[in-house]
């Protein structure tokens, strides 16, 4: 079994002619006095403006946000003045983009809604992130935060330390990914990091949680993202460029008996992902990974089948990760160079993939991009990320 799920017995329907369109990004800012509702409203407004539809034509709404509390998607409908016949709230952090897409696509396919707006957004004031940490989950409150209160830096430091010892991945390897993503970000006006990053700067940055240094750690910020899910015919009628959904996977709390997280749910479902799309990792033209820390990029290279477990170091040394390199990674710069706008971080890669496959890149365009792989990873509930998801998307011919 190798920890992988059975493929044959769980045949999943394709998504027929359900497509993704209208990639929207609400400007990222380091700090803002505005609430999550504000960023979510701008995401929705961006969607209807881009699609040229009336707000009332949006009959499905899918929301992700950490900072919407005490509200949920329900309360948000009144803020936004919408009356959807289908509503979902996806509290899955870094996996919320792909999971939201899965829910929305099935709703459209089954006729529960015709046009679903998927939006995510979060605020960031100076103390927002700190306030989130202590109450992130019961396990975090009881068994993590009282230990140094390092937040995700400490959790990812454990993974990184383990990867370096066990698999011989070096700081230079991690640094190569961060530097490449920064190069990509320089063409993205929305990226919060505007200056090039050298490997020396990466290596000599101040220590945050050894072995993590400053540029290993994602920067919290405020912002929003969104996209629309509808049938192809509708997108064409609206004149909207769109992207086909080849296949998707999600998994929660995979491999609970692993002593430490060295693989995540993708490893269970990766055969499904490629099998249903009739693709292989070689067919993927770019990867929008979930990248709050470089170690998780490395885990995705392995778990999504680009190299074997433990061989990511060699894979990194053998490839170039800029937009025009041998393995284009996060062509917009990713969270590490754009910023992590809370739950919108779970949308960033998906929205960029839609842009890349419709020739509307945030910055650089990956040449000849036909198939993109988007991956999400979320919710360090205690000691590991619980949610994983991935989607293979294809340029409409």
């Amino acid at each position, binding site marked *: 079994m190798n920890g992988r799920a059975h493929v044959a017995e769980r045949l999943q329907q394709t998504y027929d002619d359900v497509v993704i369109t209208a990639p929207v990004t609400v400007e990222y800012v380091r700090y803002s006095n505005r609430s999550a509702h504000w960023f979510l409203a701008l995401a929705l407004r961006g969607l209807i403006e881009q699609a040229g539809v009336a707000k009332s034509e949006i009959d499905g709404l899918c929301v992700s946000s950490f900072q919407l509390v005490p509200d949920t998607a329900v309360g948000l409908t009144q803020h936004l003045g919408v009356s959807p016949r289908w509503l979902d709230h996806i509290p899955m952090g870094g996996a919320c983009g792909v999971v939201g897409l899965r829910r929305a696509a099935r709703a459209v396919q089954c006729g529960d809604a015709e046009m679903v707006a998927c939006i995510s957004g979060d605020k960031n004031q100076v103390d927002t992130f700190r306030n989130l940490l202590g109450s992130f989950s019961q396990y975090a409150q009881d068994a993590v935060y009282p230990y140094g209160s390092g937040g995700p830096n400490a959790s990812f430091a454990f993974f990184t330390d383990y990867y370096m010892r066990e698999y011989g991945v070096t700081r230079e390897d991690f640094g190569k990914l961060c530097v490449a993503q920064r190069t990509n970000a320089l063409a993205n006006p929305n990226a919060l990091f505007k200056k090039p990053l050298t490997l020396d700067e990466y290596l000599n940055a101040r220590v945050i*949680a050894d072995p993590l240094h400053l540029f290993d750690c994602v920067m919290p910020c405020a912002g929003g993202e969104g996209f629309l899910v509808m049938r192809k015919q509708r997108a064409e009628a609206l004149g909207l460029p769109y992207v086909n959904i080849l296949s998707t996977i999600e998994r929660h709390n995979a491999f609970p008996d692993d002593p*430490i997280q060295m693989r995540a749910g993708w490893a269970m479902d990766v055969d499904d992902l490629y099998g249903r799309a009739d693709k292989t990792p070689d067919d993927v033209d770019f990867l929008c990974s979930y990248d709050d820390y470089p170690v998780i990029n490395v885990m995705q290279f392995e778990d999504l089948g680009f190299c074997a477990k433990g061989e990511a170091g060699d894979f990194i040394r053998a490839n170039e990760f800029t937009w025009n390199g041998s393995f284009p990674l996060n062509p917009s710069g990713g969270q590490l160079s754009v910023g992590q706008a809370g739950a919108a971080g779970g949308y960033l890669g998906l929205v960029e993939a839609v842009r890349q496959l419709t020739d509307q890149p945030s910055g650089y365009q990956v040449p000849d991009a036909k198939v993109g792989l988007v991956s999400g990873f979320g919710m360090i509930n205690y000691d590991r990320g619980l949610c994983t998801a991935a989607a293979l998307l294809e340029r409409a011919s």
Partner: protein
Amino acid sequence: MTNPLQPPKRKNPILRTRQPILPPWTRSRVGLGMTSAAARGRFELQQCDGCGAVQYPPREMCSDCLGTELTWTEMSGRGQLISETLLHHAHDLYFRERMPWRLGYVKLEEGPSVVAHLHGDVPAPPTAVNVIARLDRAGRGVLIAIPEQEVPNMADDRQLREMTCDPKFRKVLITDGKSETGQAMVREIARAGASLIWVGHTEPWKQPEGFAELADIPEVELIPLDVTESRNIQELGKALGGRVDILINTAQVHRTHGITDRYGTDVAKMEMEVNYMGLLRLAQNFAPAMMSRGADGQNSAVAWVNILSAFALANYPSHGTYSASQAAAMSLAQCLRAEFKPSAVRVLNVFPGPIDEPWNQMIPPPKIAPERLARDVVAALKDGVEDLYPGDVAQEMYSRFREDPKILEKELGDG
């Protein structure tokens, strides 16, 4: 290797005294189970009654079989350090003041992996470690991974010392040095390396055996102290309150009466006056100054010890009024503990069974020797525990109390 702790330098009076800050103390109710065990120095995790799986973090159901009967069970502490980090950045003020801070991720022999504070002498992973549970400065149970074998100056580790109340280089006030318990406590505290020991004494006409020799201990300073005299305690509080790091209240009156075997309230009043009101007077006059010094450097104010009695848990009728005074003192000590919480000063309540001294003449053995009691108290300070049941009688009494307080009441009532 941990550097041995050095005697503190004289405090610079110009510098601001660092104010106490607590580490994050919010826990779920089920999460407090670990604190309950750590308060007695034990490392316990939940184990499923149905399938035996050990659970962590604390939860309401077994994640293997969904059984809901989970029993807090002592762990071996054996584990393997899988990975580590040295934090240089913290979101919480307490840790921010104490950077860098070493953390480890440990796979326990019993199954779960735990995030733990990591002792400085533990080598880099992978390596075997010993995991212990301690109370942190917020009085909440936390896990610490320490070296598998004892290493030199192990207790002096900066992070471990944050969790303990080691008397080494600390200034200690023992309120009554005349009783056998008091004398034993003075000698044991001196052995533990206290830098100064104030020893209270009253009734100068009484010179019990051994008391005169206490003055030969170089760290000892004898002071007249009578917990029934408000003015005396007030003055001592003013003079010493800001210097005491550990206060050990050994003052007790113990008589052997119930309700009907001795008419009147004079004896009961005397017991209450010393055992309960004495504690109240001490607390009102010493606690405020100690609270202000809860984070005053390496040798901060750190603990308040009450020598109570296991009969505080349930009344022993032949020592009935004494038991009642102990119950009152225990309740007051809980109040003191709650009021001390923001200051990070710990209250250690000690519940010995009958001590081997004259007022317990009629109680058959086993009785705890004062020397043993004193040793256990010092060990409890070094382990940072909050409730101590020293000796076999106290341990048994506590387990009977936990099992069913009503049965214990009936049994003690039978004499």
